[in-house]
């Protein structure tokens, strides 16, 4: 790899890690946070006929997981082009 390409790869990796860690924080918050650690507190709140903690544990976390992956795909495709490392 040439020097400029190496620089690009480094910057790409940094963007990628930042995105990944942010999304992992969300992943943790909706499942382990809302669905497990704080489930009792959140259950005091009603949300469209569900206690909120219960909804996160059995429905909401799964919806967020799906949306998160598609967001990741979309964002990574942008990064691929931005740093010129996309597939031909």
């Amino acid at each position, binding site marked *: 790899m040439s020097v400029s390409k190496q620089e690009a790869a480094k910057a790409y990796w940094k963007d990628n890690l930042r995105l990944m860690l942010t999304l992992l924080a969300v992943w943790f918050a909706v499942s382990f946070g809302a669905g497990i650690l704080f489930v009792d507190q959140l259950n005091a709140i009603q949300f469209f006929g569900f*206690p909120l903690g219960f*909804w996160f544990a*059995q429905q909401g*976390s*799964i919806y967020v997981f*799906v949306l998160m992956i598609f967001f990741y*795909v979309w964002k990574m495709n942008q990064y691929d082009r931005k740093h010129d490392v996309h*597939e*031909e």
Partner: protein
Amino acid sequence: MDTQTLIYLFVGATFALYIGIALWTRAGSTSEYYVASKGVHPILNGMATGADWMSAASFISMAGIISFIGLDGSVYLMGWTGGYVLLAMCLAPYLRKFGKFTVPDFIGERYYSQTARLVAVVCVIFISFTYVAGQMRGVGIVFSRYLEVDINTGVVIGMCIVFFYSVLGGMKGITYTQVAQYCVMIFAYMVPAIYISMMITGNPIPQLGFGSEVVGTGQSVLERLNGLSTELGFATYTDGSKSTIDVFFITMALMVGTAGLPHVIVRFFTTPTVRAARLSAGYALLFIAILYTTAPAIAAFARINLLSSIPETSYSEAPQWVTNWEKSGLIAWLDKNGDGKIQYGPGAPFAGAPTFGPERGVNGERMVTNAPSEAATELYVDRDIMVLANPEIANLPGWVVALIAAGGLAAALSTAAGLLLVISTSISHDLLKSNLMPNISEKKELLAARVAAGVAVVVAGLFGIYPPAFVAQVVAFAFGLAAASFFPAIVMGIFSKKMNKEGAIAGMVVGLAFTFSYIVYYKFIFPTAGPADWWFGISPEGIGTLGMIFNFIAAIAVSTVTAAPPEHIQHIIEDIRIPRGAGAAIDH
């Protein structure tokens, strides 16, 4: 047409479809056999991954389990979906870029070590066999319930079908059959779910009906469920009874274990590009989520139906499905107080599954020979009822029952085939080609893969016919071991340039040994142990999480005091981190 004829028709038609697809997609090269030539469209790969992932247990048992444990059932819902987030972001794109065929391939090359590869091969085979034994049993059970053959005949029929398309078609055949199986499975799951949701809440979408009011009561589904549960002495549905730390550890072990299961990972080797690998993880989870968000709704509806229609009803007036499923032994009633009415409450009416005597009781019920327990409850309900009896509960026509039969078989067969392929690949590719016989020709390797798949089918079938008494106990193994071995090794292989072979091997060995001995100790040597005996209150199901943490610690500690990985490994890592170049043909 009567229901039985319809079942034969549906099951026969779907089997013909699977075999047709297998003939049409025969594999001609090892690349086709192992990874379908890396030419699978992301949406199709997503469906195939969904079918691969959702087993007979997801299809038949999961809603029932949740139905009986309420909030605690969330560990399965979150645990078996959250792993795909890890797969999509931490594993799939990089493994696709790496571009070989198997997980041991990656471990062996990244850690420049045949020992590491061998450790990985042993884990793959152990994990996959553990898993496949349960699937073959599942095939047998579905057959025996619907086709009126005994379980063993069912297992043999299932073996023949799987043998046919996994041996012939390899990954290519399996992928396209799994796409068909996904469609059959999801249709079969959703039709009764939609009808039941309409019947109970008036809302046709189960996920929304779950939060709506129960028709004619003015209470929401969950309020009604909590009310009924409390009335009958059960724990409230929306509160858990497991400790928070245990729920946390089990969920984590299932998520990380999912991301580390070889038959799931290998699906992402089949996409044409890195982009497609990421996207296909998204589609896979989307297709899985359709079933996984419906299951808790079905669980709640079925529970309401059970609790509001059964207790204090006299046996002679009980709904038709009660007597129907009593015939197959999934429901049993023991009139302890002799009042002719069904009492239903917490606890078990007797120990274990019911055994029936030849005679009938005074109310016409099948007489149970089990000794009654202390509890006042008189009703035994197998958890699988919650899905199997749905069509009857909702008064749906016979073809829906037939659909469920075909769906259950699709779920069991698709998972079994995916696992068998992984086993055969690790024998022919990782063990023979990469280790014992590096000069083997491609033609011979392909033959070896087919022979290995054939042998694996037979072994799995034997496990199904003579299930080791511990089958139900060892599922914890598959997830725990995958979490404690592969996941950390692969993640560090991608995200750390400093991780070397000494560290990775030490980590895998520590993680595996710890998890394995903890599960063996608390499941087999000391099975009466409860939360008070477990380390920090972590059950064997959740211990893989701790094993994973030990793996990371051991690996990092050892790698800091041993030599850094060689130069060419650094290049491999730099290369897998960027997508460009993945499309290039990869030969081995």
